Every structure is written in structure tokens, then in C-alpha cells.
């Protein structure tokens, strides 16, 4: 019953791995999301040693490894550090393409905040552009409570 390897046939089984997950935002992450939901405020965390203001906030300083607990409110306006226009459909995109992503340094923050950009034509985008957060009406304590950042007129 010996066969040549080439004569053997492989089957392809289409399937999935589906294990729902629930991620804890934690104490710091929760406060950040709750402030956005309840007060449309964007909160950062300042390292009192290094002076860096992290947005989104974090509980450990990237630089000195200190525990952080100094909350500061940052502005909902900021400057685009970089951007991209995602043009092709993908199962993970939150909307039909094109979807514009950007990293925005909010006024008062020491880091860039990754989010989406809207109300802007792709060809008008540029690094250094001033933008402002547009909050959703219905907010659920999610990073998507910010709809996107739009250019400041």
C-alpha cells in the first residue's frame, strides 16, 4: 500500500478560534476611560521625578520605573505627529476605508496619543496640523468615546 509522497493529498479545514476575552482596564485605565465618558476630559499621568506627562496614563514611569499617581488634565486639542490613511478593507477596521489614523501630541501631554482623524480630506493632512477631539454623544467608557480628532479651524 505504498504510495509516492506526491500522490498523497492534503485537506484544508477552515475554522476559527473563538475565545471571548474581557480585559481589565485596571485602576488607572478605568479612571481615564471614565473621565472621558462622564466629563469628556482627557487625563494624563505625570511622573513627578521625570516630569513626563503620559497620555494615555500609565501606572509605571517608562523612564525611571517609579510608581505614578499624579493625575493631570490635558487639553483636548493637540498637534499631529504622524498619520496614515488606511485605504484597504480589513476585518479589524472600525469603519469602511479610508480610515485615517494619527498620533497626536495633546497640549499639556509629553507623549503622543494614538487615535483616528476625521472631518479632513486625506490630501489636507500634514504633520504639525492642529486638531481637536470630537467626543461621541453616546459614551461607554471606551477609547472609542472619542469619535476622532478633527482639524482646528
Amino acid at each position, binding site marked *: 500500500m505504498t504510495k509516492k509522497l506526491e500522490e498523497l493529498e492534503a485537506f484544508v*479545514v477552515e*475554522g476559527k*478560534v473563538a*475565545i*471571548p*476575552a*474581557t*480585559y*481589565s*482596564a*485596571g*485602576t*488607572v*485605565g478605568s479612571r481615564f476611560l471614565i473621565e472621558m465618558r462622564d466629563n469628556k476630559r482627557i487625563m494624563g499621568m505625570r511622573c513627578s521625578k521625570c516630569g513626563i506627562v503620559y497620555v494615555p496614563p*500609565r*501606572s*509605571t514611569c*517608562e523612564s525611571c*520605573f517609579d*510608581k505614578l499617581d499624579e493625575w493631570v488634565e490635558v487639553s483636548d486639542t493637540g498637534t499631529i505627529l504622524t498619520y496614515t490613511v488606511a485605504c484597504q478593507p480589513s476585518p479589524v477596521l472600525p469603519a469602511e476605508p479610508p480610515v485615517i489614523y494619527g498620533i497626536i501630541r495633546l497640549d499639556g501631554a509629553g507623549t503622543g496619543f494614538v487615535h483616528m482623524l476625521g472631518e479632513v480630506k486625506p490630501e489636507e493632512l500634514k504633520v504639525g496640523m492642529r486638531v481637536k477631539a470630537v467626543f461621541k454623544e453616546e459614551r461607554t467608557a471606551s477609547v472609542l468615546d472619542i469619535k476622532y480628532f478633527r482639524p482646528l479651524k
Partner: protein
Amino acid sequence: MANRVAIVGIGQTFHKSKRPDVNQAEMANEAVRAALTDAQLGSKDIEAVVSSNMEPFEGVYLPDHWMASEMAACGKSGFKVATGGTSGASAVVEAFHLIASGLASTSLVVGFQKHDTGDTQAGMTACMTPVFGSGATTGAISEFANQALVYMEKSGAKEEHAAMVRLKADRGACRNPYAQLKLGLKGVEEILSSGYLEWPIRILDFCPQTCGACALVLASEEIAGKITRKPVWIADTITVHQEPFRAGSFGDPTGLETYSQDVASTKLYKRNGITNPRKDIDMAEIYEPSTWEEMMHYEHYHFCDENEGWKLIEKGITAIEGEFPVNPSGGVLSTNPIGATPVIRVAEAALQIRGDAGEHQVTRDVKTAVATALGGCNWTTMILLRRSL
């Protein structure tokens, strides 16, 4: 020749079933901070970080990347390993080699698992793809159920003995501030009246699902000499993996197969001049996902003869004050954050050697201890620790 490697820092989280107050990275950070504090080192003193975690459990691809800053890994060398249940031990092994080789002089080992995120049993079931075996295999519990049945018949162990293992674990856990399940059990009757998960595994025969992390700081002899008076030396490590058993599953349907534990312990003992393990080793922290596994592992690790594992528990030999204490910490039966579990085994064994285990310090003076891990399809990693080399 190779540098000697010491454990100079030990840290773990308080283990709980749910941790909504921290994300995965922050949870690992708690253990990392504790280990650094214990070692009296700062994050900048660490050269490498080796981590372990099972990605499909939490559904995070490259979780070590997400958690890099919290693990003090930024700007440092390191990588993640994963070998199923043994992952944490694999991380200890690779960090050990990093230092022994001279590629690093200090290394953090970080194991973590946040069980309140995903579904652990489902994650384990996904060890099998639908291409083969997933039809009949339903995760780890079925495997352990099968093994328990085989063992019962072969050795004459009874359900009472399994209950005694839980009782021993619970006594340890109640003395261990970090343990998750502290039931305060009074006797075996209470355990024997708990319901079955999958026959013959009762709820209390099985390990819980835990959120927790454990971190170790490993250092070269030179560094260890400078920072601690109580280094715990990693004398040797061994890893033995194996094929799935004949039924294409993790459990041995016959009770006759060669076990990775046999091969690993035989080689490890031989290399290290251990002829009578119960005499030459002072205590063990083993990875026992079920009460039955603990009794079987006594045999596989040659702590006793074949079919006599249950007698060790019956006679109290492996109790905290016994002749050869096993899992005085309460073991996996009390606390099981899988990615961290083997790291906890090493941490607890090291604490026993240092004499720092507090209320669950064993009666016997511990100069040599062994920590083991179980993963994959019955894979084994063993780590031998000594007070002096």
C-alpha cells in the same frame, strides 16, 4: 566554564481569581517590583528579561511587547518563551543559560496569567486544531480524569487519598499569604462531598484559575556576591518534552508509557549525584494540576516506588512537617496562574532554602530543593536549587 547562577530576588502578587483593579501589564509589574525590592536592585540594574505566558488564554499576541515597560524590559535584551504549562520553567531555564553563558549578568524572569480575561479551559482545548483530535479532546480536565482512572486501577489509590492531597495543600495555602484558595478544610469528608467536574475529578481535586504573576531576579556569582548574603543557586535544569501519548492525547491510556518525568528526573539525579532523592533532596515544589497528579508525580519523580505515591500522602511524609515536604506553599491546587505557576514553584523552593517561607517554612532544614513543571503533552522541566554549590 560556565558562570554560576543565583536567584537573588523573589516576588509574587497576591493571587486572586479576579483582578479588575489592574491590567495584565500592571499585574506583572507588581511581581517585578517585589522581586527587585527583594534583590535590592533597581530596574536599571537588570540586563535581560525572559517572560512566559500562553497567548491564546488572554488572546494577546506578543503580550511581552505590551508589557515591556512594566516588566522593566525597555532598552534591555530578552524574549518570551511558551511551552504550555511549563512556560514559566522554560523562562527560568533560558534566563539561567543567559547568565551561565555570560550573555547577561542579571536577568528577570516574569511569569503571568490573567485568568479573568479569557477562558483557560477553552484555551487549552485549542491545543488541538480541528484538523486532528479536537473532536474528542476537551481540554486538560479530561486528560487528568483519564490519568486518575488509570492510576486508581493500577496502584490501588482511592478517592480518599486524593482528598488527603487537597487537605495537605489547603493547610499549606492557609499559611501562605500569597495563595489564592484558602478553604480551611477540616477533613477528607468535606472534600469527598464536593461535586465532580469530570468523573473522577472533583471540584476540589482540581486547581483553581488564578490571576497572578511571579518574578525572579537571577544573577551571576559576581553580582550575587555583592548584593545578597542568601543566594539560592541554580545547580542544574532539565527539560524533557514528549509526543502525545498513543491515543493522540496528553493522557496515557495504558499506564505503561515512558513518562517525561521519569526521563528528566533520572538524568537530573544522575548528573547531580542524587542517589536517594528523598534523602538527597530536602523538599520539592511540584506542578500538580490535580490531586491525582501529585500522587502520580511522586512516583514519576522517584520520590517513592511505583504504585506507592498514595502511601506518601497517607503516611504524611510529604506534609509540611514531614520527612519529605512537597508543596508546603499550597501548590498549584491552591494557586494556578499558568504562565506564572512554574516560576512560583521555583520561587517557593528558593524561599524554603533561604528559610524565608515564613509560616509555611518546612520543618526539615532545606539545603537542596527541586522545582518541577508540567506542560504541553506531559512535558517536564525540573530545576534543582541548592544553598551552596
